[in-house]
Protein backbone atom coordinates (compact mmCIF):
# COMPACT_ATOMS: atom_id res chain seq x y z
CA UNK A 1 0.00 0.00 0.00
CA UNK A 2 2.67 2.42 1.05
CA UNK A 3 4.77 1.59 -1.97
CA UNK A 4 1.82 2.11 -4.28
CA UNK A 5 1.10 5.49 -2.77
CA UNK A 6 4.73 6.51 -3.24
CA UNK A 7 4.60 5.35 -6.84
CA UNK A 8 1.46 7.38 -7.44
CA UNK A 9 3.23 10.51 -6.26
CA UNK A 10 6.05 10.23 -8.80
CA UNK A 11 4.11 12.00 -11.54
CA UNK A 12 3.01 14.98 -9.39
CA UNK A 13 6.53 15.23 -7.99
CA UNK A 14 8.07 15.47 -11.46
CA UNK A 15 5.37 17.83 -12.63
CA UNK A 16 6.00 20.07 -9.61
CA UNK A 17 9.71 20.15 -10.29
CA UNK A 18 9.07 21.10 -13.92
CA UNK A 19 6.68 23.89 -12.91
CA UNK A 20 9.06 25.03 -10.18
CA UNK A 21 11.84 25.42 -12.74
CA UNK A 22 9.47 27.16 -15.15
CA UNK A 23 8.44 29.62 -12.43
CA UNK A 24 12.04 30.41 -11.56
CA UNK A 25 13.18 30.60 -15.18
CA UNK A 26 12.76 34.42 -15.38
CA UNK A 27 15.04 34.76 -12.36
CA UNK A 28 17.61 32.56 -14.09
CA UNK A 29 17.39 34.87 -17.12
CA UNK A 30 18.03 37.90 -14.90
CA UNK A 31 21.03 36.34 -13.17
CA UNK A 32 22.84 34.98 -16.24
CA UNK A 33 22.31 38.13 -18.28
CA UNK A 34 23.55 40.38 -15.51
CA UNK A 35 26.95 38.84 -16.14
CA UNK A 36 27.14 39.54 -19.85
CA UNK A 37 28.36 42.25 -22.18
CA UNK A 38 25.79 43.89 -24.51
CA UNK A 39 26.77 41.91 -27.63
CA UNK A 40 26.75 38.66 -25.69
CA UNK A 41 23.18 39.31 -24.56
CA UNK A 42 21.82 39.93 -28.03
CA UNK A 43 23.60 36.84 -29.39
CA UNK A 44 22.71 34.35 -26.68
CA UNK A 45 20.32 35.53 -23.99
CA UNK A 46 19.67 31.94 -22.85
CA UNK A 47 23.20 30.65 -22.34
CA UNK A 48 25.40 30.87 -19.29
CA UNK A 49 27.77 33.84 -19.34
CA UNK A 50 31.30 33.32 -20.61
CA UNK A 51 32.77 35.29 -17.75
CA UNK A 52 30.89 35.43 -14.44
CA UNK A 53 33.24 38.18 -13.21
CA UNK A 54 31.50 40.57 -15.58
CA UNK A 55 28.68 40.69 -13.02
CA UNK A 56 30.92 42.65 -10.65
CA UNK A 57 31.58 45.24 -13.30
CA UNK A 58 27.87 45.60 -14.05
CA UNK A 59 27.01 45.83 -10.36
CA UNK A 60 29.66 48.50 -9.96
CA UNK A 61 28.20 50.45 -12.89
CA UNK A 62 24.73 50.38 -11.33
CA UNK A 63 26.06 51.13 -7.86
CA UNK A 64 27.69 54.32 -9.14
CA UNK A 65 24.94 55.27 -11.61
CA UNK A 66 23.44 58.70 -11.03
CA UNK A 67 20.12 57.45 -12.40
CA UNK A 68 19.84 54.71 -9.80
CA UNK A 69 21.68 56.10 -6.77
CA UNK A 70 21.40 52.60 -5.42
CA UNK A 71 22.54 53.17 -1.83
CA UNK A 72 20.39 56.25 -1.37
CA UNK A 73 17.34 54.73 -3.13
CA UNK A 74 17.64 51.60 -1.07
CA UNK A 75 17.81 53.62 2.14
CA UNK A 76 14.80 55.71 1.07
CA UNK A 77 12.81 52.56 0.35
CA UNK A 78 13.76 51.18 3.76
CA UNK A 79 12.89 54.42 5.57
CA UNK A 80 9.53 54.77 3.80
CA UNK A 81 8.53 51.12 4.16
CA UNK A 82 9.62 50.70 7.78
CA UNK A 83 8.15 54.00 9.02
CA UNK A 84 4.86 53.37 7.24
CA UNK A 85 4.66 49.82 8.60
CA UNK A 86 5.43 50.80 12.20
CA UNK A 87 2.94 53.65 12.14
CA UNK A 88 0.28 51.57 10.39
CA UNK A 89 0.57 48.81 12.98
CA UNK A 90 0.54 51.09 16.00
CA UNK A 91 -2.07 53.59 14.84
CA UNK A 92 -4.48 51.10 13.24
CA UNK A 93 -4.43 48.67 16.15
CA UNK A 94 -5.10 51.37 18.75
CA UNK A 95 -7.85 52.87 16.59
CA UNK A 96 -9.43 49.46 16.06
CA UNK A 97 -9.34 48.84 19.82
CA UNK A 98 -11.25 52.00 20.77
CA UNK A 99 -13.68 51.38 17.92
CA UNK A 100 -14.41 47.89 19.25
CA UNK A 101 -14.64 48.88 22.90
CA UNK A 102 -16.78 51.99 22.44
CA UNK A 103 -20.24 50.84 21.48
CA UNK A 104 -21.90 53.98 20.15
CA UNK A 105 -23.46 54.91 16.86
CA UNK A 106 -20.63 57.30 16.12
CA UNK A 107 -18.06 54.59 16.70
CA UNK A 108 -19.86 52.13 14.43
CA UNK A 109 -20.34 54.87 11.84
CA UNK A 110 -16.63 55.71 11.76
CA UNK A 111 -15.77 52.03 11.34
CA UNK A 112 -18.22 51.61 8.48
CA UNK A 113 -16.80 54.66 6.69
CA UNK A 114 -13.27 53.25 7.06
CA UNK A 115 -14.30 49.88 5.68
CA UNK A 116 -16.24 51.44 2.80
CA UNK A 117 -13.13 53.45 1.89
CA UNK A 118 -11.37 50.20 0.93
CA UNK A 119 -13.22 50.40 -2.41
CA UNK A 120 -11.62 53.75 -3.26
CA UNK A 121 -8.93 53.24 -5.91
CA UNK A 122 -5.83 55.40 -5.83
CA UNK A 123 -6.72 56.72 -9.30
CA UNK A 124 -9.65 58.80 -8.08
CA UNK A 125 -7.62 60.75 -5.52
CA UNK A 126 -4.20 60.91 -7.18
CA UNK A 127 -4.58 64.09 -9.24
CA UNK A 128 -6.35 66.15 -6.55
CA UNK A 129 -3.84 64.85 -3.99
CA UNK A 130 -1.04 66.56 -5.92
CA UNK A 131 -2.83 69.92 -6.06
CA UNK A 132 -3.89 69.61 -2.43
CA UNK A 133 -0.41 68.69 -1.15
CA UNK A 134 1.04 71.63 -3.07
CA UNK A 135 -1.57 73.85 -1.47
CA UNK A 136 -0.73 72.59 2.02
CA UNK A 137 2.88 73.60 1.39
CA UNK A 138 1.75 77.07 0.26
CA UNK A 139 -0.49 77.53 3.29
CA UNK A 140 1.53 75.99 6.10
CA UNK A 141 5.05 75.60 4.74
CA UNK A 142 4.92 71.83 5.40
CA UNK A 143 6.30 70.12 2.33
CA UNK A 144 4.47 66.91 1.51
CA UNK A 145 5.50 66.51 -2.14
CA UNK A 146 9.00 65.08 -2.64
CA UNK A 147 9.29 64.41 1.08
CA UNK A 148 9.27 61.43 3.40
CA UNK A 149 6.50 62.99 5.51
CA UNK A 150 4.15 63.24 2.54
CA UNK A 151 4.63 59.74 1.21
CA UNK A 152 4.45 58.11 4.66
CA UNK A 153 1.26 60.05 5.43
CA UNK A 154 -0.16 58.85 2.11
CA UNK A 155 0.67 55.22 2.89
CA UNK A 156 -1.00 55.51 6.29
CA UNK A 157 -4.08 56.98 4.63
CA UNK A 158 -4.30 54.28 1.98
CA UNK A 159 -3.27 51.37 4.20
CA UNK A 160 -5.25 52.14 7.35
CA UNK A 161 -8.70 51.01 6.20
CA UNK A 162 -7.72 47.42 5.60
CA UNK A 163 -5.43 47.34 8.65
CA UNK A 164 -8.15 48.66 10.97
CA UNK A 165 -10.57 46.15 9.48
CA UNK A 166 -8.17 43.27 10.22
CA UNK A 167 -7.38 44.45 13.77
CA UNK A 168 -11.06 45.14 14.44
CA UNK A 169 -12.04 41.57 13.61
CA UNK A 170 -9.41 40.11 15.92
CA UNK A 171 -9.86 42.55 18.80
CA UNK A 172 -13.56 41.64 18.96
CA UNK A 173 -12.60 38.07 19.84
CA UNK A 174 -10.46 39.10 22.85
CA UNK A 175 -12.48 38.70 26.07
CA UNK A 176 -13.25 41.96 27.79
CA UNK A 177 -12.59 40.46 31.28
CA UNK A 178 -8.88 40.63 30.52
CA UNK A 179 -9.03 44.41 30.35
CA UNK A 180 -11.33 44.76 33.34
CA UNK A 181 -8.82 42.99 35.53
CA UNK A 182 -6.12 45.39 34.39
CA UNK A 183 -8.35 48.40 34.98
CA UNK A 184 -9.12 47.23 38.52
CA UNK A 185 -5.38 46.89 39.10
CA UNK A 186 -5.13 50.57 38.27
CA UNK A 187 -3.97 50.52 34.65
CA UNK A 188 -4.79 53.64 32.64
CA UNK A 189 -6.66 52.85 29.36
CA UNK A 190 -3.64 53.51 27.15
CA UNK A 191 -1.52 51.29 29.39
CA UNK A 192 -4.15 48.55 29.29
CA UNK A 193 -4.02 48.60 25.51
CA UNK A 194 -0.26 48.60 25.12
CA UNK A 195 0.47 46.15 27.94
CA UNK A 196 -2.39 43.68 27.54
CA UNK A 197 -4.04 43.91 24.13
CA UNK A 198 -1.24 44.96 21.80
CA UNK A 199 0.86 41.81 22.41
CA UNK A 200 -2.19 39.59 21.88
CA UNK A 201 -2.65 41.00 18.37
CA UNK A 202 0.53 39.37 17.11
CA UNK A 203 -0.96 37.28 14.31
CA UNK A 204 -2.68 40.33 12.85
CA UNK A 205 0.45 42.43 13.23
CA UNK A 206 2.16 39.81 11.08
CA UNK A 207 -0.56 40.03 8.44
CA UNK A 208 -0.57 43.83 8.39
CA UNK A 209 3.23 43.88 8.12
CA UNK A 210 3.38 41.40 5.27
CA UNK A 211 0.46 42.67 3.19
CA UNK A 212 1.46 46.31 3.48
CA UNK A 213 5.17 45.58 3.34
CA UNK A 214 4.95 43.86 -0.05
CA UNK A 215 2.67 46.59 -1.35
CA UNK A 216 4.66 49.60 -0.11
CA UNK A 217 8.10 48.27 -1.02
CA UNK A 218 7.06 47.50 -4.60
CA UNK A 219 4.61 50.32 -5.21
CA UNK A 220 5.33 52.43 -8.26
CA UNK A 221 2.47 54.83 -9.00
CA UNK A 222 2.21 56.57 -5.63
CA UNK A 223 5.96 57.30 -5.32
CA UNK A 224 6.02 58.32 -8.98
CA UNK A 225 3.43 61.02 -8.27
CA UNK A 226 4.48 62.12 -4.79
CA UNK A 227 8.26 61.83 -5.10
CA UNK A 228 8.74 62.02 -8.86
CA UNK A 229 11.56 60.41 -10.84
CA UNK A 230 15.12 61.61 -10.55
CA UNK A 231 14.76 63.54 -7.28
CA UNK A 232 16.90 63.11 -4.21
CA UNK A 233 14.28 60.89 -2.56
CA UNK A 234 13.70 57.87 -4.82
CA UNK A 235 12.42 54.39 -4.07
CA UNK A 236 13.87 51.26 -5.65
CA UNK A 237 11.07 50.85 -8.24
CA UNK A 238 11.43 54.52 -9.19
CA UNK A 239 15.18 54.09 -9.53
CA UNK A 240 14.82 51.03 -11.76
CA UNK A 241 12.29 52.73 -14.01
CA UNK A 242 14.42 55.87 -14.10
CA UNK A 243 17.39 53.81 -15.23
CA UNK A 244 15.42 51.74 -17.75
CA UNK A 245 14.07 54.99 -19.21
CA UNK A 246 17.53 56.51 -19.57
CA UNK A 247 19.31 53.38 -20.86
CA UNK A 248 16.70 52.00 -23.24
CA UNK A 249 17.41 48.38 -24.26
CA UNK A 250 20.78 48.29 -22.48
CA UNK A 251 19.66 45.01 -21.04
CA UNK A 252 22.96 44.01 -19.41
CA UNK A 253 22.70 47.01 -17.10
CA UNK A 254 18.90 47.09 -16.74
CA UNK A 255 18.88 43.44 -15.70
CA UNK A 256 21.71 44.08 -13.25
CA UNK A 257 19.70 46.91 -11.70
CA UNK A 258 16.74 44.52 -11.48
CA UNK A 259 18.91 41.84 -9.91
CA UNK A 260 20.11 44.33 -7.30
CA UNK A 261 16.51 45.34 -6.63
CA UNK A 262 15.43 41.71 -6.18
CA UNK A 263 18.23 40.28 -4.07
CA UNK A 264 17.38 41.98 -0.75
CA UNK A 265 13.73 40.89 -0.97
CA UNK A 266 14.55 37.32 -1.88
CA UNK A 267 17.02 37.09 1.03
CA UNK A 268 14.41 38.49 3.40
CA UNK A 269 11.92 35.94 2.08
CA UNK A 270 14.29 33.03 2.63
CA UNK A 271 14.62 34.03 6.29
CA UNK A 272 10.99 34.90 6.96
CA UNK A 273 9.22 32.52 4.58
CA UNK A 274 6.85 30.92 7.09
CA UNK A 275 6.01 34.27 8.64
CA UNK A 276 5.30 35.84 5.24
CA UNK A 277 3.14 33.03 3.88
CA UNK A 278 1.14 32.77 7.12
CA UNK A 279 0.60 36.52 7.13
CA UNK A 280 -0.60 36.44 3.53
CA UNK A 281 -3.18 33.72 4.26
CA UNK A 282 -4.59 35.31 7.42
CA UNK A 283 -5.09 38.58 5.58
CA UNK A 284 -6.89 37.17 2.58
CA UNK A 285 -9.26 34.78 4.35
CA UNK A 286 -10.68 37.53 6.55
Amino acid at each position, binding site marked *: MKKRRAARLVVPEILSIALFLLFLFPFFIVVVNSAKAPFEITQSPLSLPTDWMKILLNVYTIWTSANVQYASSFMSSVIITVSSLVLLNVLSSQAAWVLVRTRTRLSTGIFIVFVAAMV*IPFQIVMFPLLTWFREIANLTGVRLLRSYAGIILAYIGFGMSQSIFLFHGFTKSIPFELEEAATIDGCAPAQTFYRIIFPLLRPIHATVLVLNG*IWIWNDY*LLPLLILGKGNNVMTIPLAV*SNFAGAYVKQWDLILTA*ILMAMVPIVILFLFAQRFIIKGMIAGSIK
Partner: protein
Amino acid sequence: MRKAKHPAIFWLFLAPVLFAFVVVIVIPFVLGAYYSFTNWSATARVGDALKLVGLANYAGILRDPSFTYSFIITVVYTLLNMIAINIVSFGLAMLVTQKLFGRNVYRAGFFVPNLIGGLILGYVWQFIFDNAVPSLGTFLGFASWADPANLLLAHNTTALLAMVVVGTWQYAGYIMVIYVAAIETIPQELIEAAQIDGASTFRRLRSITLPMIRQALTVTLFITLVNSFKQFDVNVSLTGGGPSAMFLGQPIYGTQLLAMNIYNQGLKSDDMAGGQARAVVFFLVLVIISVIEVSVNKKKEVEL
Protein backbone atom coordinates in the same frame (compact mmCIF):
# COMPACT_ATOMS: atom_id res chain seq x y z
CA MET B 1 -18.74 51.91 33.88
CA ARG B 2 -18.14 54.59 31.25
CA LYS B 3 -18.68 58.11 32.44
CA ALA B 4 -18.37 60.04 29.20
CA LYS B 5 -19.99 58.57 26.09
CA HIS B 6 -16.72 58.96 24.23
CA PRO B 7 -13.84 58.99 26.72
CA ALA B 8 -10.68 60.97 25.99
CA ILE B 9 -8.87 57.82 24.98
CA PHE B 10 -11.39 57.28 22.16
CA TRP B 11 -10.45 60.52 20.44
CA LEU B 12 -6.80 60.29 21.42
CA PHE B 13 -6.38 56.86 19.78
CA LEU B 14 -8.48 57.74 16.74
CA ALA B 15 -6.98 61.17 16.07
CA PRO B 16 -3.93 60.08 14.01
CA VAL B 17 -5.83 57.79 11.63
CA LEU B 18 -8.70 60.25 11.31
CA PHE B 19 -6.17 62.93 10.40
CA ALA B 20 -4.53 60.76 7.74
CA PHE B 21 -7.92 59.66 6.44
CA VAL B 22 -9.23 63.19 6.05
CA VAL B 23 -6.04 64.63 4.53
CA VAL B 24 -5.23 61.77 2.14
CA ILE B 25 -8.64 60.33 1.23
CA VAL B 26 -11.63 62.51 2.13
CA ILE B 27 -10.42 65.93 0.98
CA PRO B 28 -8.83 64.75 -2.30
CA PHE B 29 -11.91 62.62 -2.98
CA VAL B 30 -14.29 65.55 -2.57
CA LEU B 31 -11.99 67.90 -4.47
CA GLY B 32 -11.69 65.34 -7.26
CA ALA B 33 -15.43 64.90 -7.60
CA TYR B 34 -15.78 68.68 -7.86
CA TYR B 35 -12.84 69.09 -10.28
CA SER B 36 -14.36 66.58 -12.68
CA PHE B 37 -17.10 69.17 -13.39
CA THR B 38 -14.67 72.06 -13.95
CA ASN B 39 -11.95 73.18 -16.35
CA TRP B 40 -9.26 72.18 -13.80
CA SER B 41 -5.64 71.91 -15.03
CA ALA B 42 -2.34 70.71 -13.62
CA THR B 43 -1.24 74.19 -12.61
CA ALA B 44 -4.51 75.22 -10.96
CA ARG B 45 -4.42 75.92 -7.23
CA VAL B 46 -7.04 74.86 -4.69
CA GLY B 47 -8.32 78.41 -4.16
CA ASP B 48 -8.47 79.31 -7.86
CA ALA B 49 -11.80 80.24 -9.31
CA LEU B 50 -12.37 77.24 -11.57
CA LYS B 51 -15.05 77.45 -14.21
CA LEU B 52 -17.85 74.93 -13.90
CA VAL B 53 -18.31 73.16 -17.21
CA GLY B 54 -21.15 70.83 -16.27
CA LEU B 55 -20.87 67.39 -17.78
CA ALA B 56 -18.45 68.48 -20.52
CA ASN B 57 -15.60 66.29 -19.18
CA TYR B 58 -17.88 63.27 -19.04
CA ALA B 59 -19.25 63.99 -22.51
CA GLY B 60 -15.61 64.16 -23.62
CA ILE B 61 -15.08 60.59 -22.43
CA LEU B 62 -17.87 59.34 -24.66
CA ARG B 63 -16.29 61.04 -27.67
CA ASP B 64 -12.84 59.64 -26.87
CA PRO B 65 -12.20 56.33 -28.67
CA SER B 66 -9.05 55.68 -26.64
CA PHE B 67 -11.06 55.45 -23.41
CA THR B 68 -13.67 53.15 -24.97
CA TYR B 69 -10.88 51.01 -26.33
CA SER B 70 -9.06 50.93 -22.97
CA PHE B 71 -12.30 50.01 -21.26
CA ILE B 72 -12.91 47.09 -23.61
CA ILE B 73 -9.40 45.67 -23.41
CA THR B 74 -9.33 46.13 -19.63
CA VAL B 75 -12.48 44.02 -19.34
CA VAL B 76 -10.98 41.40 -21.66
CA TYR B 77 -7.66 41.45 -19.80
CA THR B 78 -9.39 41.22 -16.42
CA LEU B 79 -11.51 38.22 -17.42
CA LEU B 80 -8.60 36.35 -19.04
CA ASN B 81 -6.30 37.13 -16.14
CA MET B 82 -8.88 36.05 -13.57
CA ILE B 83 -9.51 32.74 -15.31
CA ALA B 84 -5.83 32.03 -15.96
CA ILE B 85 -4.65 32.90 -12.46
CA ASN B 86 -7.35 30.88 -10.74
CA ILE B 87 -6.92 27.79 -12.89
CA VAL B 88 -3.13 27.82 -12.59
CA SER B 89 -3.10 28.55 -8.86
CA PHE B 90 -5.73 25.92 -8.12
CA GLY B 91 -3.69 23.38 -10.07
CA LEU B 92 -0.56 24.36 -8.16
CA ALA B 93 -2.44 24.09 -4.87
CA MET B 94 -3.66 20.59 -5.76
CA LEU B 95 -0.07 19.61 -6.47
CA VAL B 96 1.58 21.02 -3.36
CA THR B 97 -1.06 19.71 -0.95
CA GLN B 98 -0.02 16.15 -1.80
CA LYS B 99 2.66 14.47 0.22
CA LEU B 100 5.49 15.45 -2.10
CA PHE B 101 9.11 15.50 -0.97
CA GLY B 102 9.78 19.06 -1.98
CA ARG B 103 6.39 20.59 -1.38
CA ASN B 104 7.64 23.41 0.85
CA VAL B 105 10.31 24.29 -1.68
CA TYR B 106 7.77 24.26 -4.52
CA ARG B 107 5.39 26.45 -2.54
CA ALA B 108 8.13 28.98 -1.87
CA GLY B 109 9.23 28.95 -5.52
CA PHE B 110 5.71 29.55 -6.84
CA PHE B 111 5.26 32.37 -4.34
CA VAL B 112 8.47 34.28 -5.04
CA PRO B 113 7.26 36.32 -8.07
CA ASN B 114 4.64 37.87 -5.82
CA LEU B 115 7.36 39.51 -3.74
CA ILE B 116 8.76 41.45 -6.66
CA GLY B 117 6.89 44.51 -7.86
CA GLY B 118 4.93 44.50 -11.12
CA LEU B 119 7.12 47.25 -12.53
CA ILE B 120 10.29 45.18 -12.23
CA LEU B 121 8.59 41.97 -13.40
CA GLY B 122 7.36 43.79 -16.49
CA TYR B 123 10.89 44.73 -17.52
CA VAL B 124 12.13 41.19 -16.97
CA TRP B 125 9.39 39.80 -19.21
CA GLN B 126 9.91 42.48 -21.83
CA PHE B 127 13.43 41.11 -22.13
CA ILE B 128 12.14 37.53 -22.22
CA PHE B 129 9.57 38.22 -24.95
CA ASP B 130 11.87 40.42 -27.04
CA ASN B 131 15.14 38.49 -26.68
CA ALA B 132 14.87 35.13 -24.96
CA VAL B 133 11.87 33.85 -26.92
CA PRO B 134 13.36 34.61 -30.37
CA SER B 135 16.61 33.00 -29.27
CA LEU B 136 14.73 29.94 -28.04
CA GLY B 137 12.95 29.81 -31.41
CA THR B 138 16.24 29.78 -33.27
CA PHE B 139 17.51 27.05 -30.96
CA LEU B 140 14.41 24.92 -31.51
CA GLY B 141 14.50 25.50 -35.25
CA PHE B 142 11.58 27.95 -35.54
CA ALA B 143 13.37 30.71 -37.41
CA SER B 144 10.15 32.74 -37.66
CA TRP B 145 10.23 33.42 -33.90
CA ALA B 146 13.30 35.55 -34.40
CA ASP B 147 11.68 37.76 -37.02
CA PRO B 148 11.13 41.18 -35.37
CA ALA B 149 7.70 41.34 -37.03
CA ASN B 150 6.65 38.24 -35.09
CA LEU B 151 7.59 39.43 -31.62
CA LEU B 152 4.77 38.86 -29.15
CA LEU B 153 4.89 42.44 -27.93
CA ALA B 154 4.69 43.82 -31.49
CA HIS B 155 0.99 43.03 -31.89
CA ASN B 156 -1.95 44.13 -29.77
CA THR B 157 -3.57 40.76 -29.26
CA THR B 158 -0.41 38.87 -28.42
CA ALA B 159 0.88 41.76 -26.28
CA LEU B 160 -2.33 41.64 -24.26
CA LEU B 161 -1.91 37.88 -23.86
CA ALA B 162 1.68 38.52 -22.81
CA MET B 163 0.34 40.74 -20.02
CA VAL B 164 -1.93 37.88 -18.96
CA VAL B 165 1.09 35.55 -18.85
CA VAL B 166 2.99 37.98 -16.63
CA GLY B 167 -0.08 38.64 -14.46
CA THR B 168 -0.62 34.92 -13.98
CA TRP B 169 3.01 34.30 -13.15
CA GLN B 170 2.94 37.17 -10.65
CA TYR B 171 -0.27 36.29 -8.79
CA ALA B 172 -0.50 32.49 -9.10
CA GLY B 173 1.67 31.85 -6.03
CA TYR B 174 -0.29 34.23 -3.84
CA ILE B 175 -3.67 32.81 -4.86
CA MET B 176 -2.23 29.30 -4.55
CA VAL B 177 -1.42 30.00 -0.90
CA ILE B 178 -5.09 30.86 -0.25
CA TYR B 179 -6.26 27.67 -1.98
CA VAL B 180 -3.71 25.62 -0.05
CA ALA B 181 -5.05 27.01 3.24
CA ALA B 182 -8.59 26.12 2.18
CA ILE B 183 -7.72 22.64 0.92
CA GLU B 184 -5.87 21.84 4.13
CA THR B 185 -9.03 22.47 6.16
CA ILE B 186 -10.83 19.63 4.32
CA PRO B 187 -11.05 16.67 6.74
CA GLN B 188 -8.79 13.87 5.57
CA GLU B 189 -11.46 11.26 6.49
CA LEU B 190 -13.78 12.71 3.90
CA ILE B 191 -11.28 12.07 1.13
CA GLU B 192 -10.31 8.65 2.42
CA ALA B 193 -13.96 7.61 2.70
CA ALA B 194 -14.51 8.66 -0.89
CA GLN B 195 -11.41 6.75 -1.97
CA ILE B 196 -12.67 3.59 -0.25
CA ASP B 197 -16.00 4.05 -1.99
CA GLY B 198 -14.06 4.06 -5.23
CA ALA B 199 -14.55 7.71 -6.23
CA SER B 200 -12.24 8.79 -9.06
CA THR B 201 -9.87 11.73 -8.67
CA PHE B 202 -12.12 13.86 -10.83
CA ARG B 203 -15.19 12.84 -8.86
CA ARG B 204 -13.48 13.68 -5.54
CA LEU B 205 -12.46 17.05 -6.95
CA ARG B 206 -16.01 17.84 -8.04
CA SER B 207 -17.89 16.51 -5.05
CA ILE B 208 -15.54 17.24 -2.15
CA THR B 209 -12.73 19.68 -2.88
CA LEU B 210 -14.61 22.28 -4.92
CA PRO B 211 -17.64 22.57 -2.59
CA MET B 212 -15.36 22.71 0.45
CA ILE B 213 -13.29 25.61 -0.87
CA ARG B 214 -16.19 27.69 -2.14
CA GLN B 215 -15.60 30.42 0.40
CA ALA B 216 -11.95 30.75 -0.62
CA LEU B 217 -13.07 30.84 -4.23
CA THR B 218 -15.17 34.00 -3.72
CA VAL B 219 -12.15 35.64 -2.07
CA THR B 220 -9.70 34.69 -4.79
CA LEU B 221 -12.05 35.65 -7.61
CA PHE B 222 -12.62 39.05 -6.05
CA ILE B 223 -8.93 39.71 -5.37
CA THR B 224 -7.89 38.72 -8.89
CA LEU B 225 -10.75 40.65 -10.46
CA VAL B 226 -9.99 43.92 -8.67
CA ASN B 227 -6.21 43.64 -9.00
CA SER B 228 -6.42 42.88 -12.71
CA PHE B 229 -8.82 45.74 -13.29
CA LYS B 230 -6.42 48.17 -11.58
CA GLN B 231 -3.30 46.86 -13.34
CA PHE B 232 -0.82 49.65 -14.02
CA ASP B 233 2.77 48.67 -13.20
CA VAL B 234 3.13 45.70 -15.55
CA ASN B 235 1.39 47.70 -18.26
CA VAL B 236 3.94 50.51 -17.96
CA SER B 237 7.06 48.37 -18.00
CA LEU B 238 6.03 45.49 -20.27
CA THR B 239 4.28 47.21 -23.18
CA GLY B 240 4.24 50.90 -22.22
CA GLY B 241 0.74 50.89 -23.75
CA GLY B 242 2.04 50.11 -27.22
CA PRO B 243 2.04 49.12 -30.02
CA SER B 244 -0.20 51.72 -31.61
CA ALA B 245 -3.39 50.72 -33.35
CA MET B 246 -6.43 52.20 -35.04
CA PHE B 247 -9.82 52.26 -33.35
CA LEU B 248 -12.95 54.02 -34.63
CA GLY B 249 -10.79 55.84 -37.15
CA GLN B 250 -8.35 57.19 -34.59
CA PRO B 251 -4.82 56.15 -33.64
CA ILE B 252 -4.72 54.80 -30.11
CA TYR B 253 -2.42 52.84 -27.81
CA GLY B 254 -3.08 49.17 -28.43
CA THR B 255 -2.53 47.80 -24.92
CA GLN B 256 -3.30 50.78 -22.72
CA LEU B 257 -5.38 49.59 -19.76
CA LEU B 258 -7.72 51.94 -17.92
CA ALA B 259 -5.34 52.90 -15.08
CA MET B 260 -2.75 53.95 -17.64
CA ASN B 261 -5.35 55.72 -19.76
CA ILE B 262 -6.34 57.84 -16.74
CA TYR B 263 -2.72 58.62 -15.89
CA ASN B 264 -1.82 59.59 -19.46
CA GLN B 265 -4.94 61.70 -19.95
CA GLY B 266 -4.22 63.68 -16.79
CA LEU B 267 -0.47 64.10 -16.96
CA LYS B 268 0.75 63.35 -20.50
CA SER B 269 -2.14 65.08 -22.30
CA ASP B 270 -2.24 67.69 -19.52
CA ASP B 271 -5.98 67.29 -19.15
CA MET B 272 -6.41 66.85 -15.40
CA ALA B 273 -10.16 67.48 -15.47
CA GLY B 274 -10.63 64.88 -18.20
CA GLY B 275 -8.39 62.41 -16.38
CA GLN B 276 -10.34 63.01 -13.18
CA ALA B 277 -13.68 62.36 -14.92
CA ARG B 278 -12.22 59.09 -16.24
CA ALA B 279 -11.10 58.21 -12.72
CA VAL B 280 -14.63 58.80 -11.44
CA VAL B 281 -15.99 56.35 -14.03
CA PHE B 282 -13.25 53.88 -13.05
CA PHE B 283 -14.23 54.26 -9.40
CA LEU B 284 -17.93 53.70 -10.12
CA VAL B 285 -17.16 50.45 -11.94
CA LEU B 286 -15.16 49.24 -8.93
CA VAL B 287 -18.03 50.19 -6.60
CA ILE B 288 -20.45 48.12 -8.71
CA ILE B 289 -18.06 45.15 -8.66
CA SER B 290 -17.72 45.41 -4.86
CA VAL B 291 -21.47 45.70 -4.29
CA ILE B 292 -22.00 42.57 -6.38
CA GLU B 293 -19.27 40.77 -4.44
CA VAL B 294 -20.75 41.70 -1.06
CA SER B 295 -24.28 40.68 -2.07
CA VAL B 296 -23.07 37.35 -3.47
CA ASN B 297 -21.27 36.70 -0.18
CA LYS B 298 -24.36 37.59 1.84
CA LYS B 299 -26.46 35.18 -0.20
CA LYS B 300 -23.94 32.40 0.37
CA GLU B 301 -23.97 33.02 4.12
CA VAL B 302 -27.74 32.62 4.12
CA GLU B 303 -27.45 29.35 2.23
CA LEU B 304 -24.93 28.03 4.72
